[in-house]
């Protein structure tokens, strides 16, 4: 008997134009582990306006840039970052 997959709750933050398109700045997502940042973003895509996100958006995990294949754990903070425009 394989163990039932663990479900993990993560928080997803949206900013600037992405927050406007989805009308949300923060979403709590629960999904079975193992999962990646890309998998979390795919869940965000299912929300109204979510299909406007680019195929591979810039992402951060716990305040650091990561690639979409980075694994996530319960309690992680994932951010979907529109094109940066500092300076």
């Amino acid at each position, binding site marked *: 008997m394989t163990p039932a997959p663990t479900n993990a709750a993560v928080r997803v933050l949206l900013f*600037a134009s992405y927050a406007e398109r989805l009308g949300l700045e923060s979403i709590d997502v629960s999904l079975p582990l193992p999962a990646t940042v890309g998998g979390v973003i795919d869940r965000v895509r299912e929300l109204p306006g979510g299909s406007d996100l680019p195929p591979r*958006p810039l992402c951060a995990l716990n305040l*650091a840039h990561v690639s979409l294949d980075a694994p996530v754990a319960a309690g992680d903070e994932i951010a979907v970052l529109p094109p940066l425009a*500092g300076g």
Partner: protein
Amino acid sequence: MKLLSSDPLDLAGLMASVQSPARGGVACFLGAVRDHHAGRQVLRLRYSAYEPMAEAELARIVAETESRWPVAVALRHRVGRLEVGDAAIAAVAAAPHRDEAFAACRYLVEEAKRRVPVWKQEFYADGSVEWVDPTGGAQPVPMEPV
């Protein structure tokens, strides 16, 4: 220390914070709000940030720069409402020699622009408002943790 600031950036204060009798070369950069962008007249703008990550990223850039060159540096980014001419970013690098000061100052500015999660909303003379996309809509290149 807060590296994101909603108050005007104080270049003289930043310079004083890194100068020393052993560091004779001080290179600095100030990036100010321009009155035009892509042919449109800009009245003012608003920077917003993913604040805790922006603070962390600015601090990482400072630490990397100071470990890579024999320099003392200061780096600040403004958030909130800015008028034309206001400084959005200030970078200062002081080193015993000018090569290192210039290289470190340049690194601070390039990395801040590339990595710090800050977004800019431009307010134009025609009344419209837009989020600025410096990539022109290109597919983002994923950034590995540095």
